[in-house]
């Protein structure tokens, strides 16, 4: 018997097309990787351990959707039932078809439409214990599994809140077409298999056979064209889904697999768009998890979230305003179930937007006087610790003063690099995409740090801390002041006396999500205060809205974001709001009903009889001027 019928063609052609399209994309992306990344990729495939690890992640993420489960069990189940259910249907269907054909090599459509070709009656009483009976049972169970996910997906469109999503991604026309196809595939399969089983009175499992029998009882039909037309329908929606897949969000299914391999090979985002960026952009499933976590919602901005930005990248049209409308707070990156580097993608786009005519800071490197008389041109004094307060800390002088007192109290030989006139750390330029200009500032600062001979660089600003760590390549240790002060307290160099009640801690984006420093500030604070719980903290902390990363938000929109963050922070009525970033402090201070203090200020307040320090490093005991 020849297992072929015309109706398999739409599916078969669609399959050929989608395999070709995916293959072509993968080839292009891999080809456009930088040479070093290509080496990484080939090296990985020589290490079975890495390949296994990658395959493991493919299973846990692309099939089981572990991160989705962590986000919301219902959402996790929905994604898993589609991915794992469909995957197992393919695998089991293949095994089942081998049983019938007796061959390991079957036409690709054969397992898919097996029930069209095979509808023999089983003669065994407990048919589930026979091989074909077991497969019929298993295939129906899997189909039910997928259909349960489909029901959830339909519910989700109306009641997304049950799935932990307040807002979901807006659809494009192509999304609607392929979503309709996807949603039709499994009901069509159910109908085709049931009607066939009903018509022949055999061949189905517990689900399809029962449904088929029911149909035959309720409205008996004699024409075999009724089930046959359903097989046509099933094949058509499959084919259409496959043909549209490369152009819709469902391209994320194959792309995520490649991306996981890329990541396991050690490929990281680059400064410019590459095959890796393509893989990230196409791996976005538009699940919409990033929408709710975005602080821009609080300001009524609903078109610049990561999902829309990435969609824009894919469509090769991102308005400049959308590229610049992002706090770079990293919340979406933290929440993304696919682990996309949303911030890096945004920065790549910003770099592309930079025109050739930008401010030139090359004069900093030369001996000739520049437009600004910079005292810091003088080589700074030698010291053990170099302190870089940062531009933002200059707007919060209480932080700088506290740091000076703390360092004097601990008897440290320190020098402040930006005491009188400073050069920016460079990160504000970097987040604007102006890396060339930033590197000019960085070169200057690097030389300043090296000139002190310091072994430790301490900064008060998490923005500076991050760029010093990530981009400066300095041969000295770098600490944020929360880590530095904690070390001083632990080694007994700073005595602490006072204890504060009810302090809430706000994680600055660049210190927490940006640099992974969550524990040091908390440990330090618990030594001087009772920390109150904050609803969304650490990885999930809200952004204050003051970020330097955003260029197109109005002050009013920023205020709205700050107000929303304050609502969360002050929920448990703290008496003081503590943070570890001068910018967060300034942003909150103007709106907060409770005092906002930097961690350094609190430590300074907790010290008994602090020494009063002067900028030049000469100390004297606190006198009448001390406040």
């Amino acid at each position: 018997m020849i297992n072929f019928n015309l109706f398999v063609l739409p599916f078969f052609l669609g399959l050929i097309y989608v395999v070709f399209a995916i293959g072509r994309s993968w080839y292009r992306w891999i080809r456009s990787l930088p040479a070093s990344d290509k080496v990484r990729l080939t090296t990985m495939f020589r290490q079975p351990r890495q390949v296994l690890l990658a395959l493991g992640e493919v299973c846990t993420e692309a099939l089981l959707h572990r991160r989705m489960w962590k986000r919301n069990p219902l959402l996790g189940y929905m994604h898993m039932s589609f991915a794992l259910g469909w995957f197992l249907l393919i695998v089991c269907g293949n095994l089942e078809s081998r049983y019938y054909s007796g061959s390991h090599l079957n036409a690709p459509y054969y397992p898919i439409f097996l029930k069209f070709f095979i509808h023999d009656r089983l003669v065994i009483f407990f048919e589930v214990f026979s091989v074909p009976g077991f497969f019929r049972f298993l295939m129906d169970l899997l189909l039910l599994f997928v259909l349960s996910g489909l029901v959830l997906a339909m519910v989700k469109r109306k009641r997304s809140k049950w799935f932990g999503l307040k807002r979901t991604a807006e659809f494009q026309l192509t999304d609607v077409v392929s979503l309709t196809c996807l949603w039709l595939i499994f009901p069509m399969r159910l109908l085709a298999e049931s009607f066939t089983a009903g018509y022949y009175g055999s061949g189905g499992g517990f689900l399809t056979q029962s449904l088929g029998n029911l149909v035959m009882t309720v409205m008996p039909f004699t024409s075999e064209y009724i089930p046959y037309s359903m097989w046509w329908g099933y094949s058509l929606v499959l084919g259409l889904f496959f043909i549209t897949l490369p152009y819709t969000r469902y391209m994320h299914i194959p792309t995520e697999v490649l991306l996981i391999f890329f990541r396991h090979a050690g490929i990281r985002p680059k400064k410019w768009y590459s095959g890796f960026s393509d893989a990230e952009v196409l791996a976005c499933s538009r699940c919409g998890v990033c929408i709710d976590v975005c602080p821009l919602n609080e300001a009524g901005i609903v078109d610049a979230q990561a999902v829309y930005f990435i969609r824009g990248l894919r469509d090769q049209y991102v308005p400049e305003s959308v590229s610049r409308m992002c706090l770079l707070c990293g919340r979406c990156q933290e929440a993304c179930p696919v682990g996309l580097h949303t911030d890096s993608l945004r920065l790549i786009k910003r770099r592309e937007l930079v025109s050739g005519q930008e401010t030139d800071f090359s004069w900093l490197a030369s001996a000739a006087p520049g437009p600004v008389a910079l005292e810091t041109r003088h080589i700074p004094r030698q010291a053990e610790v170099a302190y870089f307060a940062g531009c933002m800390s200059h707007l919060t002088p209480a932080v700088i003063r506290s740091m000076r007192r703390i360092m004097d109290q601990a008897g440290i030989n320190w020098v402040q690099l930006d005491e009188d006139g400073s050069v920016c750390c460079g990160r504000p330029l970097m987040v604007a995409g102006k890396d060339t200009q930033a590197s000019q500032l960085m070169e200057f600062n690097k030389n300043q740090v090296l000139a002190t001979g310091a072994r430790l660089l301490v900064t008060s600003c998490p923005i500076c801390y991050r760029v010093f760590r990530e981009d400066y390549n300095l041969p000295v240790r770098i600490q944020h002041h929360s880590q530095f002060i904690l070390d001083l307290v632990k080694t007994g160099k700073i005595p602490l006396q006072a204890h504060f009640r009810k302090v809430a801690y706000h994680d600055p984006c660049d210190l927490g999500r940006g640099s992974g420093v969550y524990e040091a500030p908390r440990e330090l604070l618990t030594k001087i205060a009772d920390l109150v719980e904050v609803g969304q903290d650490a990885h999930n902390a809200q952004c204050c809205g003051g970020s330097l990363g955003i260029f197109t938000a109005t002050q009013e929109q920023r205020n709205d974001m700050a107000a929303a963050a304050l609502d969360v922070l002050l929920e448990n009525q703290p008496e003081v709001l503590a943070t570890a970033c001068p910018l967060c402090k300034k942003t909150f201070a103007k709106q907060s009903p409770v005092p906002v203090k930097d961690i350094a200020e609190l430590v300074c307040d907790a010290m008994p009889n602090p020494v009063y320090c002067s900028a030049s490093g000469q100390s004297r005991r606190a006198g009448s001027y001390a406040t």
Partner: protein
Amino acid sequence: MYKNIIIVGGGIAGMAAAAALSEIGMEVTVLEREKLPGGHVRSWDRLFPTLRAAKEVLDFLNKSLGLLTEIICDIEVGSIVPTPGGYTIHCTNGDIFTTGCLVLATGYDLFDARKKEEYGFGIYENVITSADLEKIFREGNQVTTCGGQVPRRVGIIHCVGSRDEKVGNIYCSKVCCVTGVKQAIEIRQMLPDCEIFSFYMDLRMYDRHFEELYFEAQQKWNVNFIRGRLSECAENPDHSIILKTEDTLTGHPLKLTVDLVVLLVGFVPGSSARKITGSLGLLQGTDGFLLPADEHTAGNRTLLPGVFLAGAVKGPACVVDTIADGRATAVEVYRYMKHSEVAK
């Protein structure tokens, strides 16, 4: 209908309204939070643009209050609740007043300069506010640095908390420009050897005699006006203050060391007005100050019957305008009471 009129707030707007109402034979009760009436003007020494003593103005208002005015001091209004035919005023000490006609003259608060942390108020001892300087003048003290020395250089900073989107106040406080000019002259009068540097965005000398005062400050008193917004202050070891700014007329960044810095703090909506707005449901502008029924044609009325607004509760205003506004409120109240009586 209650015959008694209640004015919440015994500052100059409330006093001027009370004086005018009692003069036309209406009974008025003024509720004042402080121990004495007079509001912010009690803290000022001399008033711009004529440099006459603030006390004279207060004395005049006090004398004109008349026999029909009762002033209750040291009493704070907690909430005001609408009742049939009028309003019930609950005070924090438990007293309750009922009235059919209410004038809100709760005024304003001064901007808390600590919110502009980069200017160092509350951190550096040689940074003070314009209100602190008035207090020094009023108490007849010498202007000195925190160490007790006579300052050789004083910096005056305009627009602190006003026209500053970053602190959330986009509006102009109207009186600070000329106050800065006035205080510069007063410092020069007191300390002839002291140099004054005023940092401004632009100087809004909008009212009568203001421009003349500005010219006088430059020509007679050699006050230096530099167009540039202060970026930040830093402190020297000797507690003098380094001002970092830009002279935007020459286009050069500027760093200047001064012995004392005076911050011209602006107006912010009064905390008491905010409380009352909540319980009465009065409208606020985007700036947080209360809105009258119509800003052109009904500047003292509100959309609530029998509730009127007088003075700086509606936004920044100078002494002259506030007194005039208090009197204008009296006319509106009189018209309302007459109509109520006719209706009765």
